């Protein structure tokens, strides 16, 4: 890990110092938020402070913030509860957290930049009560979806809208009410908090419809059983409060992208609205897996597609849905963490150019 340049923020952000301090503070407290005694009250105060901080930062009432183990559980909870008795319509580029929780979902097509087709959504909504799942920012390309416009269509059609805001939260302004969504999934470690915490934010009507996935001891107002991971939740809230967006990374991201383009890369989804920390770079004729390995050996951490638990790099369903063709298997994701530096980008540029010059191109 010595001297490694970490450019895989969309997999996990480096821990923010504010979050680290909050985790350490919470670790030193003994107490279960459900306990009656003073230690329990102390833990409960910490938990509710965190809940209020998350609600303040991302909208909605504190009472309608449900803490979970992370983004995947938040997505699963929303789909489990709000998808009951309804058709599920999901964006074609959704994260596996959504795809796996809604295996029978109708897929909403996207254009070449990865942006959902709202005309198609409008037509699909005519088929009766639905739950629509649309992510705010894509994990592989950073592409931003027109959530407010989609929300207007959903509300007109009486559909629920669940937004996976895991990648967007902390990197841009994200507010449940402003988006017009009924529910929103968040993850602590994607915004610089520790791994192991997340939240589902709900509007009052969606909260009333919520049924738990995990029963247990009635925590989270009966909406999510299990003793709270208090240190992780405290760190999550501290990180959320410390986030200042990722606009400051746009210049560095563009530098990285330019260097790759000069070496023969193609930037995917670069012509549409996207997060300012992310770029998807395809190197025609070179398998993504090989690029990731070569860069890793050069001390650069990036990723490609969706890594299976085996570590195998699979073809990207996101890039395939965008019509990227063969490039879908030849693209890496470079995602800048909140603390990226110009030296990091210079190091990446040099390593990328060396890699592009050395890797053998497969015959088409």
């Amino acid at each position, binding site marked *: 890990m010595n001297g490694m340049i970490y450019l895989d923020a969309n997999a996990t952000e480096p821990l923010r110092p504010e979050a680290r301090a909050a985790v350490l503070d919470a670790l030193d407290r003994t107490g279960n938020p459900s306990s009656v005694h003073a230690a329990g009250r102390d833990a409960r105060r910490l938990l509710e402070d965190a809940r209020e901080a998350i609600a303040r930062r991302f909208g909605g009432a504190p009472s309608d913030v449900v803490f979970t183990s992370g983004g995947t559980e938040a997505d699963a909870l929303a789909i489990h509860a709000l998808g009951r008795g309804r058709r599920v319509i999901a964006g074609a580029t959704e994260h596996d957290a959504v795809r796996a929780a809604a295996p029978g979902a109708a897929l909403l097509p996207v254009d070449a930049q990865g942006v959902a087709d709202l005309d198609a959504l409008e037509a699909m909504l005519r088929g009766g009560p639905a739950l629509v799942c649309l992510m705010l920012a894509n994990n592989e390309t950073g592409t931003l979806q027109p959530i407010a416009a989609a929300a207007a269509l959903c509300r007109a059609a009486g559909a629920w809208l669940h937004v996976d805001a895991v990648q967007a939260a902390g990197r841009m302004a994200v507010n449940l009410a402003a988006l017009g969504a009924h529910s929103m999934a968040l993850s602590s470690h994607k915004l610089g908090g520790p791994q192991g915490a997340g939240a589902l934010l709900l509007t009052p009507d969606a909260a009333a419809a919520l049924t738990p996935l995990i029963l247990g001891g009635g925590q989270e107002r009966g909406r999510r059983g299990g003793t709270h991971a208090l240190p992780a939740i405290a760190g999550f809230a501290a990180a959320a409060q410390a986030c200042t967006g990722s606009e400051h990374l746009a210049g560095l991201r563009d530098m990285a992208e330019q260097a790759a383009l000069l070496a023969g890369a193609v930037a995917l989804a670069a012509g549409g609205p996207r997060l300012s920390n992310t770029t998807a770079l395809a190197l025609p004729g070179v398998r993504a*897996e*090989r690029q990731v*390995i*070569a860069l*890793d*050996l050069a001390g650069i951490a990036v990723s490609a597609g969706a890594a*299976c*638990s*085996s*570590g*195998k*790099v*699979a073809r990207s369903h996101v890039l395939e849905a965008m019509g990227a063709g063969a490039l879908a298997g030849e693209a890496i994701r470079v995602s800048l963490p909140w603390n990226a530096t110009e030296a990091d980008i210079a190091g990446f540029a040099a390593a990328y150019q060396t890699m592009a010059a*050395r*890797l*053998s191109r497969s015959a088409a």
Partner: protein
Amino acid sequence: MRVLVAMSGGVDSSTVAGLLAEAGHEVIGVTLQLYDHGAAVGRKGACCAGQDIHDARRVADHLGIAHYVIDAEARFRAAVMASFADSYANGETPVPCVRCNQTVKFTDLIELAADLGAERLATGHYVQRIDGPGGAELHRAADPARDQSWFLFATTRAQLERSLFPLGGLPDKAHVRGEAARLGIAVADKPDSQDICFVPSGTYADAVGKLRPDALAPGEIVSETGEVLGLHDGIARYTVGQAKRLGPAAQAGGARRVVVALDPAQRRVVVGPASGGTRHLRLREVNWLAEPARLRCQVKLRARDTAHDAEIVPTADGVDVILDAPALPAPGQACVFYAGERVLGGGFIQRPVPVTRAAPVDAAVMAAL
């Protein structure tokens, strides 16, 4: 030196990685995902990676080396599994491990090694690479019980130049397990892998049948003169020299009979006396690891075969082999040439008479695998 090590998760390749790392080399471990393990064991929801991939990663963690899983599923399906099934349907007995070594392992991994700036590819094969006056030579392993040189005859000379086989010179498997234990490798006691890797249940006929149902179609067991002696349930279940699965036909005429030929066009299994056979065989796809020449040497017709004295004669499109004494070579198997311990080359045994090849595997069937 930067070395790429092909790690299967077994004790042999794990020990190779450990020994090279201990010697101070920069070791990069790679494990090929050749097929979907979950689909192969037929368990819904099972991970695409098997226990072997997990084991390889844990060994790499223990050794403190980089490790990557390479998705070779599509390549393996096209280069190994398709020809495996086609070969059976054509009345041959294929050696998928040779095909895999030839393509996925020694072609693709050596290219990967070059891409990653690694000078050598090391594997856990029991063979020796010895530098001779004309370049790298392939020799049998020091332990004759473990020797895998027959399986590696198709490695090209250029590939051999870039390969390392650290286990080939070790005296025996117990020594390897001892080295693994000394290095703290957790798989030191893991049993040796058996059979064909992509057929975990061991019923290779089912795997063949999925790709080529015609290879499991019933037919007749006949004598060399065409007399019908019994029925069989698919030529893919038979190989030349086999005595099992013949029923009463095995003893027809009083003498012990074995399979002497397979006729895919008529779906017939032909039996004859076990003492019979042929002295002449023709090889295709010959790979030379020495200068091609007409010469007397020894040949091995099966992985676990004793050597036969023979004369080999290079031809325009292969090699003709004249055995001193008759044998029962199975078409599709390899015939490997040895001069003492050294491998001179080898090729695949052709069917003695030209047969009409059945249609190749349908693309849709392949995709469904």
